[in-house]
């Protein structure tokens, strides 16, 4: 991954390393910072009466640029940009801006690069990445300023069009059987899914990542990981169990928890979604 510091004014805003990116950023009135968060370029300006946000998203979901630097209030971030203004009168001259990464707010549907065939009585491990969301808070009080996806995945739907859903996201990147084949991106989290098939041979064309039910971790190298997920398919062909292991995979090594799950782990939500996916499971 590449890092960016001090491009706009020649003055680095901080150390620029990924670790500091997620730390507090002291901001004065009239000060602006530009963040490069993978596919998203985000410009944050702090004014006395409001926070002004402008952001744009690249078409490449795996864009690797990561970092931040000082900017001018009127700087553009590219076309087309979306502007949001958050009214918040704040007399304090200095205020910290806190960035927090977190997982998607809906289930994410991922496709393997080629359909995976899981033989009867066997198990496979699949690695998949999903885009991160960024939560901006005013520290130390913690008021939410905004929550933005670093890359807005396409909407998708589980089940028939006349059904009840649920609405989910479709991951544009492909799932892989080995971690080494997975394209690492600084603004995506890696999920390891274990598929145990006790039923007849299963052909897997799509996978569900229960992002809202997973916790987010970061390893020493700055890579993001989620809890491991285990899916078991019973002898009758129905998905009998989904286990959200509550810990990252061993491949992650030493990690630090950076965000709790958005929703309390309810594996039956995933089971129901799997039922929609494979029809009648």
């Amino acid at each position, binding site marked *: 991954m590449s890092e960016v510091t001090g491009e706009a004014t020649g003055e680095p805003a901080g150390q620029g390393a990924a670790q500091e990116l997620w730390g507090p950023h002291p901001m004065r009135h009239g000060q602006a910072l530009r963040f490069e968060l993978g596919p998203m370029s985000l410009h944050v300006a702090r004014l006395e009466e409001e926070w002004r946000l402008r952001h744009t998203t690249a*078409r490449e979901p795996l864009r690797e640029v990561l970092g931040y630097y000082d900017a001018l209030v009127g700087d553009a971030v590219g076309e087309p940009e979306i502007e949001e203004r958050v009214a918040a009168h704040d007399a304090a001259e200095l205020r910290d801006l806190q960035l927090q990464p977190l997982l998607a707010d809906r289930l994410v*549907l991922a496709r393997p690069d080629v359909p995976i065939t899981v033989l009867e009585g066997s198990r496979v491990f699949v690695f998949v990445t999903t885009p991160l969301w960024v939560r901006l808070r005013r520290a130390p009080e913690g008021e939410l300023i905004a929550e933005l996806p670093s890359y*807005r*995945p*396409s*909407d*998708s*739907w*589980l089940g028939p*069009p*006349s059904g*009840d*859903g649920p*609405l989910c996201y*479709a991951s544009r990147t492909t799932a892989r059987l080995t971690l080494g084949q997975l394209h690492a991106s600084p603004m995506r989290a890696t999920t390891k899914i274990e598929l145990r098939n006790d039923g007849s041979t299963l052909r897997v064309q799509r996978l569900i990542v229960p992002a809202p039910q997973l916790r987010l971790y970061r390893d020493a190298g700055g890579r993001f990981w989620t809890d491991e997920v285990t899916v078991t398919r019973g002898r009758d062909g129905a998905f009998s169990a989904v286990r959200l292991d509550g810990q990252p995979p061993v491949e992650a090594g030493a990690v630090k928890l950076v965000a709790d799950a958005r929703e309390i782990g309810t594996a039956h939500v995933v089971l129901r979604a799997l039922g929609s996916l494979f029809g009648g499971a």
Partner: protein
Amino acid sequence: MSAVADAIGAAVGDPRVSGWVRAVIVLVVGLVVVRGVSLVVRAIAMRMAEPRRATLLGKAALYVGSLIVAFAALRETGANLSVLLGAAGVLTVAIGFASQTSASNVISGLFLLGERPFVVGDIIRVGDVIGTVEAVDLVSVKLRTFDNLYVRIPNETLFRSNIVNQTHYRLRRIDIEFALPVREDIPRVRELLLDVAAHDPRVLDEPPAVFMIHGINDAGLMVRFSAWVTRENYLEQRTRLYEEVIGALRAGDVQLAWPHRSVVSSVQVADRPAFDAPEAPHEDAR
């Protein structure tokens, strides 16, 4: 209660008074009890049904209970109820003939409440009227059209009409139809359009967007591009998708086809006009 009424009657010196006093007491106590029962019925129904139905049930309990209390009070006065009921029957028939339309609307309304083809907030089309359902009442449904008109549709009309509920399902499909010249590179156009769907996050990945040719006419190949969106995004996304499709076709230098007709004339003899010129009128015809 009866003893009190008898005592009042004796004090007044007229036994008929005690009957009237009993009737008043029955009426007052009965109406209070009926009111309480209707509130309980409504509260229980609120837990099991939508607010609109619960209110109707509560009102039904109130009206039926009040009628029973009224008859009970009349009975206390010594009135002959059989005569009254007979008169009420005749009156009911007379009113029934006079209010056929209203009764029809009420009955249709009850059926619609049971069937629930739509609820308040849905967008429905009845005939050529499209609007948001503002209220579902016993005799009519009120709609607000998109150009902010208030439309009252009698329940009987609704019951007899085709109702299209545009917001019943969570997903809607946007269909864009146009014609392409027969010589156009169709696989390339298909790729361009599916790429539009793939890069618009509001267009659902599943169900997938579909590109199909559904006919040939005097314009060329009739093409339909269909993409799914959520009903919340439907109106906004329909316009956006048209813009994106037109943009993609322009960027890909794809020409649309329009209805046309080729007129071919064959000239076999050089000095003979393609069409016979009208003969000059004879002199004697002038």
